[in-house]
């Protein structure tokens, strides 16, 4: 199975990196830039998993490790069963 997981900061949590990127873009002359939020993604490959279980399983990865629920949300996409 192949999955992609996006992990992003919750709204309201300060994102110093995104902010720095936005201001750096402006300094480079891209004045139209209003805001940037930065996140992480993971491309995960596993051995065969029963199709129905795959999504639940990847959500487990997120809850157990990939995301910190205090500051982050996540979204799981199964790319290939």
């Amino acid at each position: 199975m192949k999955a992609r997981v996006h992990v992003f900061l919750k709204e309201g949590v300060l994102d110093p990196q995104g902010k720095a990127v936005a201001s750096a873009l402006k300094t480079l002359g891209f004045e139209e830039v209003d805001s940037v939020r930065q996140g992480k993604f993971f491309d995960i490959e596993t051995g065969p998993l029963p199709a129905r279980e795959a999504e639940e399983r990847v959500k487990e990865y997120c809850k157990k490790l990939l995301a910190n629920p205090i500051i982050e949300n996540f979204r799981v996409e199964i790319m290939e069963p």
Partner: protein
Amino acid sequence: MKVGVVVFPGSNCDHDALEWSSRLLGLPTEEIWYQDRDLRGVDLVILPGGFSYGDYLRCGAMAARAPIMDEVVAHARRGGLVIGICNGFQVLCEVGLLPGALLRNRSLTFLCQDVYLRVETTSSPWTSAMRVGEVLRVPIAHGDGNYYCDPETLGRLLGEDRVAFRYVSPGGTLDPEWNVNGSLEAIAGIFSEKKNVLGMMPHPERASEDMVGSTDGLGIFKSVMGALCG
């Protein structure tokens, strides 16, 4: 009283913590390997600084899931003493023993320098031998020490007198310029509800000998010895 220093792969202040408690304070101290499931009867657990798992993914995230952490959590829930320094603080937040999280420093760079800490409360086993408002000079060395929590949690921390230290100017006043990593409310260290768990970003173990800069970090250990040995 026996002290245990947990060693994760990538811990690098484990020796410093070990020395802090064994050589400088004369307490029997042992290393505890992250894969163990036994705290071997220690009274106080130190989660040392460093880069457990390279700080990959999120600082402290992978260490928080190591086998030994179940024991550390159980020890803390029983009221046992636990201190997390720097990376250890990050681990304590990740494992849920302390609320909030440590985000990237405001400067987005790693920062190693002396900071000034104001003791915010003495009603804890970790600060009982100090004075409220006392200013300590202690080094920091981290890239992710910018303390964050939601407003509700912050309210609870403040209401329950659980802020241990704040970053202040050398004169002891709050000043954004001296809150070098940009922490919420200049928070440098916090307690758990029962105050048996302390997490702090600065390194008191590096400030316990004049020859290497300062002895202001000894107060924490003196307090805790008082608490334990009566």
